[in-house]
């Protein structure tokens, strides 16, 4: 297998369950006096960034934190709804570190690194301890103990949650730890600052160039190490569940300066999002996966019914039971509506493509609570109340109350956005881009191929393989920030104690700043006719159509050409109003979309190269006769790490994935 | 870095003084309205005059009166300081405010209602408190009941006085409607069980007390107090 000497994963020797413990105890330490003179730059203030910054500052490092939002508390980790997994086995239902490890590897369709995932499972319990100690108000039982639920079809109850706002509560916990360090002067905070390039000096990452978004001024910042905790790149699709500002710029600039990009094509499409309502749509909103526990997914059996629903001639409530196609229950009787995200998403697309979609655009399926509301919860409540032969109206009334209790806030949100009452009408849902498993390639220490440059959380490629399980993203972000980087950064910084801060007038800084300045001027000087969004939407459509839920070689090749065309037009006909030295949101967006226009090409290239279907990557050429994904372990059991030679020219390096503790099997949910 | 010495200069400390003095003034109203209700006995002011005489000469009451004035002045001074600080906290106002959507007009108008009350109070003290003081110090014979009656039955001036007193009572009512429960909230006295009760008592108090007060000038004018 072709490889690069740079692609050393540095996985410690020894049995899987002792690798981390042993490594942690032997990794080089930096003495407290030296820590005070070592500076660490953290870019991004989500779970990974805030946790890392706070933890490193507590250890004594001098830390600077950068975020483009107006406060670190706004990072998009805040939007995670469902929960966070941890192998605590509080419910005595047979959970263990091994089981969490196994589920995560399997859920990732056998495309993640064993050692990293096992470490993640090992520290998962510590995360819960840490968060509770910070005052994160997790849901509790009446006895005062922590409550758990099962999530995403796992067979154990290992998910900790805080209503539907787990991400928010965890982020506020990390944010408060961060603010504590800010108050003590150990962390210097740079909000409304966007990192626009890294600075490499003598082969090591030594700092960043950031733009103060309020004044527009460029700043140089030195760091002995730089941590990119900048999230995923789902916004390359324009429409996604990401925040409007979520971007790839930090990771992409690092990629252009030598950091390999791992598995860029692995994209998670979440099956239950509110469908697009029109051309004005700016983002998509996720409805928690937990809804699939009680909602049944269907489309009409007959095309003419679907047609009638689309044009408003038929009310779906009046469609007879035998005329409905509960396609997940039909195709996957064992898991039914609870199949993993990638499977559920593809099945929805298949039905809509075949002409059975139900909203005006034909791009939606129903998530229907009527049946379970009445005949599951309604009946249970009637029994509790001692009513033997409840009427239909009673069943509906009782069931309504239960569903409101369980999902009230989600139903409200749905009604808020669509103007439709989901208690009375089936919800309409459609898959949307949600998370990117790919990201900067990192070794066991979370260091990229650029020495001194790290990537944490969604920004790296490491733990979720080709598909992420529900409630695992929060776990990974916090694991990286709280419990991995504080140890592993020592391996590098122990050798940097003699490095004096590099003067900011060093030619490396000057040149990097000049390059950034030039790009900004270039964007402003085009003075074309089209807005940033115009190009972003075009790129998004190409990506969604050709590199979305289903991909094929022909489409991907076309997409690569098309993206290049859009990119050329972008640089010829873009209009960015305003100036460089002022608060200029359009200029910010322009820089980000410029990077998406390059990333998109690499994603397609990676998707084209991976001639198999696995997890979130589905190639139409590689499916079974029943339309299920067909993995090719013999040829593709590797991490694709791309090195940029120049724009449009990448070299592929492969890190072989070795499974020594898990037997690889085909996923089946039939 | 914390210190408790700044308590009285902190936002909450100043509010604490507002709440405490406010509730203290409420307690004065209870005494005031009780004694004045003796007017409704319609015995030619005999009982009322006896009570008024007792209040005017009792040294304990005289001492408490000083406290009352201190409380009143503290309430006014803090209100001024807080209002100035509040104005500074929003130097540029909104072009359009829909306050009715989120709060009652009188809760937003405590400063205005308080100012009206202060003006009323000046008039009220001039009408009754000052003549009594003069009488007490000069040891002159005086009949409080008759003095009150005179104010409200003096032709056109009497009608104006009645109207001004009713307006004063209305201001008091709205001031109390917010202030009563607000005082408890400011002192941190918020309880799932008791707060709803306090709020109810507050509403009843804010309607009954000013109403009883208002009935006095009206009563003199209409002649049902005699």
């Amino acid at each position, binding site marked *: 297998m072709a490889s690069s000497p740079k692609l050393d994963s540095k996985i410690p020797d020894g049995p899987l369950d002792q690798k981390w413990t042993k490594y942690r105890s032997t990794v080089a330490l930096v003495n407290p006096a030296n820590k005070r003179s070592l500076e660490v730059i953290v870019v991004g203030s989500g779970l990974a960034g805030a946790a890392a910054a706070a933890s490193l500052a507590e250890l004594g490092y001098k830390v600077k934190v950068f975020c483009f939002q107006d406060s670190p*508390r706004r990072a998009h980790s805040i939007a995670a709804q469902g929960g966070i997994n941890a192998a605590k086995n509080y419910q005595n239902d047979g959970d263990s570190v091994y089981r969490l490890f196994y589920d995560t590897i399997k859920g990732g369709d056998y495309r993640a690194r064993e050692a990293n995932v096992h470490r993640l499972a090992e520290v998962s319990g510590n995360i819960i301890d840490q968060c509770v100690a910070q005052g994160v108000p997790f849901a509790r039982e009446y006895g*005062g103990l922590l409550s758990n639920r099962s999530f995403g079809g796992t067979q154990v109850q290992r998910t900790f949650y805080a209503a539907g706002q787990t991400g928010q509560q965890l982020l506020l916990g990390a944010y408060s730890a961060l603010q504590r360090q800010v108050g003590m002067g150990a962390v210097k905070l740079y909000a409304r600052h966007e990192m626009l390039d890294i600075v490499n000096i003598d082969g090591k990452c030594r700092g960043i160039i950031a733009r103060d978004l309020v004044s527009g001024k460029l700043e140089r910042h030195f760091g002995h190490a730089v941590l990119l905790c900048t999230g995923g790149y789902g916004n390359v699709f324009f429409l996604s569940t990401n925040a409007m500002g979520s971007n790839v710029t930090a990771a992409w600039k690092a990629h252009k300066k030598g950091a390999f990009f791992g598995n860029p094509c692995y994209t998670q499409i979440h099956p239950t999002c509110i469908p697009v309502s029109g051309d004005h749509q700016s983002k998509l909103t996720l409805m928690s996966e937990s809804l699939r526990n009680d909602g049944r997914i269907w489309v009409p059996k007959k095309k003419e019914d679907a047609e009638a629903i689309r044009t408003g001639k038929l009310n779906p409530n009046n469609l007879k039971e035998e005329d409905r196609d509960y396609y997940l229950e039909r195709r996957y009787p064992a898991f039914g509506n609870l199949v993993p995200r990638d499977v559920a998403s593809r099945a929805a697309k298949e039905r809509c493509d075949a002409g059975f979609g139900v909203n005006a655009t034909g791009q939606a399926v129903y998530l229907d609570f009527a049946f379970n509301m009445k005949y599951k919860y309604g009946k249970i409540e009637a029994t509790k109340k001692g009513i033997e032969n409840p009427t239909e109206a009673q069943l509906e009334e009782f069931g309504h109350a239960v569903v409101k209790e369980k999902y009230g806030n989600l139903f409200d949100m749905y009604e808020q956005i*669509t103007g439709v009452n989901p208690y009375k009408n089936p919800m309409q849902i459609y898959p949307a881009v949600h998370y990117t498993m790919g990201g900067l390639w990192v070794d066991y220490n979370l260091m990229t191929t650029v020495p001194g440059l790290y990537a944490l959380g969604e920004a790296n490629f490491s733990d979720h393989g080709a598909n992420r399980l529900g409630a695992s993203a929060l776990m990974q972000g916090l694991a990286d920030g709280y419990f991995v980087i504080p140890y592993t950064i020592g391996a590098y910084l122990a050798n940097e104690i003699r490095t004096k801060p590099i003067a900011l007038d060093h030619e490396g800084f000057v040149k990097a700043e000049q390059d950034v300045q030039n790009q900004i001027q270039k964007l402003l000087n085009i003075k074309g006719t089209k807005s940033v969004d115009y190009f972003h939407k075009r790129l998004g459509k190409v990506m969604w159509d050709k590199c979305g839920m289903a991909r094929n070689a022909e489409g991907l090749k076309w997409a690569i050409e098309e993206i290049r065309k859009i990119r050329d037009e972008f640089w010829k006909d873009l209009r960015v109003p305003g100036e460089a030295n002022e608060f200029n949101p359009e200029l910010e967006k322009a820089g980000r979309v410029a990077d998406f226009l390059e990333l998109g090409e690499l994603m397609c290239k990676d998707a084209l190269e991976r001639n198999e279907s696995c997890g979130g990557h589905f190639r139409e050429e590689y499916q079974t006769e029943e339309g299920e994904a067909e993995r090719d372990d013999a040829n593709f059991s590797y991490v694709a790490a791309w090195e940029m030679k120049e724009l449009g020219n990448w070299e592929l390096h492969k890190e072989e994935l070795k499974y020594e503790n898990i037997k690889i099997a085909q996923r089946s949910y039939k | 870095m914390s210190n408790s010495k700044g308590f009285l200069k902190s*936002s909450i400390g100043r509010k604490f003084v507002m709440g405490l003095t406010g509730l203290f003034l409420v307690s004065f109203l209870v005494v005031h309205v009780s004694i004045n209700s003796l007017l409704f006995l319609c015995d030619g002011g005999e009982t009322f005059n006896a009570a008024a005489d007792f209040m005017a000469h009792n040294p304990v009451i005289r001492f408490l009166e000083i406290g009352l004035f201190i409380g009143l002045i503290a309430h006014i001074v803090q209100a001024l300081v807080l209002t100035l600080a509040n104005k500074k906290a*929003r130097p540029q106002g909104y072009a359009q*405010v829909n306050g009715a959507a*989120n709060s009652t007009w009188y809760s937003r108008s405590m400063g205005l209602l308080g100012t009206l009350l202060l003006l009323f109070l000046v008039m009220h003290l001039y009408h009754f408190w000052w003549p009594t003081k003069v009488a007490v110090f000069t040891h002159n014979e005086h009949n409080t009941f008759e003095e009150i009656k005179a104010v409200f039955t003096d032709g056109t001036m009497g009608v104006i006085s009645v109207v001004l007193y009713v307006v004063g009572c209305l201001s008091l009512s709205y001031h109390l409607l917010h202030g009563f429960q607000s005082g408890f909230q400011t002192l941190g006295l918020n309880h799932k069980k008791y707060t709803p009760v306090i709020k109810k008592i507050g509403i009843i108090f804010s309607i009954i007390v000013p109403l009883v007060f208002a009935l006095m000038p009206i009563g003199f004018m209409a002649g049902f107090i005699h």
Partner: protein
Amino acid sequence: MAGSSGKNINVTIKVWRQKNKNQKGQFETHEMKGVSTDMSFLEMFDVLNERLITEGKDPVAFDHDCREGICGMCSMYINGRPHGPKQGVTTCQLHMRSFKDGDIIVVEPWRSAAFPVIKDLAVDRSSFDRIMAAGGFVSVNTGNAKDANNILIPKDDADEAFNAAACIGCGACVAACKNASAMLFVSAKVSQLALLPQGQVEREERVLNMVKQMDAEGFGNCTNTGACEAECPKGISLENIARMNREYIHASTIANRK
């Protein structure tokens, strides 16, 4: 049918324009024709900005990020109310179906000395971060924690702490308050940690420090009008303010400390 209602309306937008903190601002009027009622309020601004850009004008700057009502970044004062006419939602979750054809919609930034305008509708809320840095935390270094289930918390306390913790830090409370007071924001954090056993150790210190910082930032004083509670998109309760008052009065008077 259960789908998009798809109506179009015409509205007039009067929006505040201000170049930066130091310059004076003024209103600018824009006619918006054929606005789909399925649009969110911010998407209507996207359309307006798109038009301004193609016309070679300066688009309206406004803060927004997640557009699903949780990050707390969006912050428009619409027709005299923070986050507009609907109760319990942020600006990003406000949809045009809340408006009628022919409406004139006045849009202003949050106005408070402690939230200086950066540009147009975007304001600087870093004062909130500084208040948090003054005490909005439990001092527990990473790795110090004991097993999570060693701390038992009555469900009611946990739920109440959660309700207080639901604050998104958007600043609507300050914007709504006639005094531009930040008491609801500060009290939500003070309450959350005062209700939990983890917060007990620093309970007095925390409330003293946070209130001190709040005062230093130039926020106004609470007069219990309740506007903050009514306009809070997350329904944070006024009870929290009473609890903070109690905590503060206790810490500065009764507590045995200098």
